[in-house]
């Protein structure tokens, strides 16, 4: 018997480097994704620090305009494709099988591959910064003809996008296959935790939109090297066509970043309000509506290209319509908190900050959706402020909330609550000092993606930079808290949080290498939403 058990362990839990390189275990791969995302968050963050240092005062102090442009471009690509998306996939890997009572992901070998091609993709991207002519510098949106002026870095940029796309599509297929085939008996679709729901919908968005991006960048590649003219008017093409295709991917991409955040917050707020999520079914429908609408609003990113007025009106109405299901979600979160018995541990603090700050980003989003006024806002710092409110104080705050919420389950120890609260307050204050003044800069007339500016913009830029440095430094505290928690501390119970519900809290902390090898029996209480 003991030999058997030994072999069992040996087979399933290889140690050392091999454990990670050849892993087919959803928990290990989830950990890899999360660590990778955190590393990318700091690399992309370092680029943001360079940007804010250069913008600290008027005049050029540190970098040349070309390098500044490549910082703007690569910062965005790394944060979107390297930090937020992999962090979301990492959480999905770790938590979805635990939440639905499955032993692992449905396609474990593909899971390994979809992670391990990511480091190669980003090695390609970062290597372009050292190439002849520098890294991509035309913005992450890669608009032709500007992107075609890129030198040696160009094919590397295109192949990076292809690789990241392949990785994400494989991840998405895996999530869909897992959720539709491996739920514990009794867990119907409308009994699934909302985090699982938001990820299933996200996975469909990924599968539908990423091939479109792959097609668009391949057309760029043939325009540059094979003499086609998809995007060149001189050869009968149209540069604006690229923008249409890009944003057909790009707008669903926004929700690929945001929907898992909705799922996280919808999990955490009920836990710390000690009250079930309000309006579960309407949350599911609202998420699905947002996802579907996201395919019909792409041109609001390009109102100024000169579309026919009927097109502009259509995209304005569709865009404003998204405010309705998004509003429903915010109201449901409020109603969940209403008459609860709330406590304010770090996950809850980050979640509440998410609701408030994401809503502020939603407000500026509604303003941007009004076409005639967007002609003033477009491509200014108002837009920069808007999308950082939804992506940083939105998506990233929700990821921080998720990390604190599930760290006890991952490590078996409680994190240092006092430090985590300090991390929260530093992050919340610094990010607002960083991004709120950018609204004013944009309204006053400062365009985005410029390395230097008129002195009328000096004061708010300096304040914004100070907020930026403070935010950057405070994230080092997060790394310290995570490492400290991984190394030890107060032992976490199986149910680490008093009000937590769901299958993941029925397994011990830390979660054993294998869980739910036989499907769990679901009690009625567990299935209550």
């Amino acid at each position, binding site marked *: 018997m003991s030999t058997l058990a030994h072999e069992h362990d040996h087979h399933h839990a290889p140690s050392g480097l091999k454990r990670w390189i050849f892993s087919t275990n959803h928990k290990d791969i989830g950990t890899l994704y999360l660590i990778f995302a955190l590393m990318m968050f700091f690399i992309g963050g370092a680029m943001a620090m360079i940007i804010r240092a250069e913008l600290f005062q008027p005049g050029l102090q540190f970098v*040349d305009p070309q390098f500044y442009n490549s910082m703007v471009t690569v910062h965005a690509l790394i944060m979107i494709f390297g930090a937020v998306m992999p962090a979301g996939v990492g959480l999905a890997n770790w938590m979805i099988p635990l939440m639905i009572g499955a032993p692992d992901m449905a396609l474990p070998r593909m899971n390994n591959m979809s992670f391990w091609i990511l480091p190669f993709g980003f090695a390609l991207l970062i290597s372009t910064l050292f190439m002849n002519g520098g890294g991509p510098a035309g913005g992450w949106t890669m608009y032709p003809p500007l992107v075609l002026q890129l030198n040696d870095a160009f094919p590397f940029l295109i192949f990076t996008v292809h690789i990241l796309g392949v990785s994400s599509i494989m991840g998405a297929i895996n999530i869909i296959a897992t959720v539709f085939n491996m739920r514990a008996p009794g867990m119907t679709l409308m009994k699934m935790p909302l985090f699982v729901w938001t990820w299933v919908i996200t996975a469909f968005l990924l599968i539908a939109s990423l091939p479109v991006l792959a097609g668009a960048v391949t057309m760029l590649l043939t325009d540059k090297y094979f003499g086609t003219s998809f995007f060149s*008017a001189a050869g009968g093409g149209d540069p604006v066509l690229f923008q249409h295709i890009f944003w057909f991917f790009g707008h669903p991409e926004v929700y690929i970043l945001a929907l898992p955040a909705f799922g996280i917050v919808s999990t955490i707020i009920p836990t710390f309000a000690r009250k079930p999520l309000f*309006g579960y079914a*309407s949350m599911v429908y609202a998420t699905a509506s947002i996802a579907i609408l996201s395919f019909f609003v792409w041109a609001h990113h390009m109102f100024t290209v000169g579309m026919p007025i009927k097109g502009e009106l259509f995209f304005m109405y569709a865009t404003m319509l998204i405010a309705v299901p998004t509003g429903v979600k915010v109201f449901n979160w409020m109603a969940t908190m209403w008459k609860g018995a709330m406590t304010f541990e770090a996950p809850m603090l980050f979640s*509440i900050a998410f609701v408030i700050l994401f809503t502020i980003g939603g407000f500026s989003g509604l303003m941007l959706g009004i076409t005639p006024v967007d002609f003033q806002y477009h491509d200014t710092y108002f837009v920069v402020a808007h999308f950082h409110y939804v992506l940083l104080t939105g998506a990233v705050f929700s990821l921080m909330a998720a990390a604190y919420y599930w760290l006890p389950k991952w490590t078996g120890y409680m994190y240092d609550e006092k430090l985590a609260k300090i991390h929260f307050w530093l992050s919340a204050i610094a990010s607002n000092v960083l991004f709120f003044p950018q609204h004013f800069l944009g309204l006053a007339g400062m365009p985005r993606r410029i390395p230097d500016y008129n002195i009328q913009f000096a004061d708010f830029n300096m304040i914004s930079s100070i907020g930026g440095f403070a935010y950057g430094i405070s994230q080092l505290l997060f790394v310290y808290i995570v490492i400290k928690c991984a190394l030890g501390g107060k032992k976490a119970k199986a149910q680490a949080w008093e009000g937590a519900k769901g299958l993941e809290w029925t397994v011990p902390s830390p979660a054993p290498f294998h869980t739910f090898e036989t499907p769990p029996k679901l009690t009625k209480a567990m299935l209550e939403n």
Partner: protein
Amino acid sequence: MTSIFKKAIQAIFLVTLPISAFADWALNMREGVTPISQKVYDMHMVSLWVVTIIGIIVFGIMFWSIFHHRKSRGVKPAKFSHSTTVEIIWTAIPLLIIIGLAIPATKLLIEMDDTSETALTVKAVGYQWKWKYEYLEDDLTLYSNLDEKSVELSQRADDVDPMEYSDYLLNVDEPLVLPTNTKIRILTTANDVIHAWWVPDLGWKRDAIPGFINDNWAYINEPGTYRGQCAEICGKGHGYMPIVVKAVSMDDYKVWVAEKKQEQDEANAASSKTMTKEELMTKGEAVYKANCLACHQANGQGVKGVFPALAGSKIATQPENLKTHITHILYGKNLMPPFGEQLNDGDIAAVTTYERNAWGNDTGDVVQPGDIAAERK
């Protein structure tokens, strides 16, 4: 670095002397100087107030709940988890609000879209990195470059401080002069990559797309100088191609057009005259700053891998390459745009001479306008 540190402390405490002597704490959109910009501003304020009021109500309720419904006050959590009635209410109310916003927005958009019955047409063409303005009725063409003082102050050097120049990066050598109280059609297009033409005081921006022409209009109420910038990333010089509109009365505009034409005719006539080397070098340096410096840099070193160096380069130093040097300037090569149509023979002769004698190139070559004319096809 100590001065940066000092300024940081000033900013933290909002004690912004001496910065505040120039900077303003503009918080809101500019109202502008056209009927449309005024309406855009009003629409902006309406939507801003709508979201502010919603925000106060929503966040107010939330904070009330956070304060009262906390475990430390000994409350017991309620059990309710759905209510179809409230779901319908909070779906319907936002829907009504956005319909309320969409109606005036639609009206305004239709008004902005009407480019009929304009009295004057100007075509703005974006170049990397300058604007060309063609007055179609008056048969006048201008190139509008970043002004020399901004060019000097924008170099990465320790001895320059742009804080003393209030029009830094928002001034040009040749402003776009437009008449007031006239419906002006402004066409936008581009020569190389996508740019965007934006003067906030006119109330809109519009992309300038190579191969396509967008049409827009403006009706300027008040004479004055209105400044804006390119608003679509267009490469290294994106932050360095401002737009300056100088609005004057129709009579003054007509006088200006006549004077400008005469000035251009005289300059063209004079440009074929032979100059001394000193004259060529002085003129050449000015032409270089306005047209060449953005890529090839003040020291002629270019940007490695993107823009070739001129200092010590084969084309700018070897006698047998003089002809190639001139034709590159006239007709362009790869990323380099053709300058033959924007610069006259005298300008090109001067800048060629300058490039062959500056930064230690010291070829001693003197290129005269006649040499340029000989290379023009």
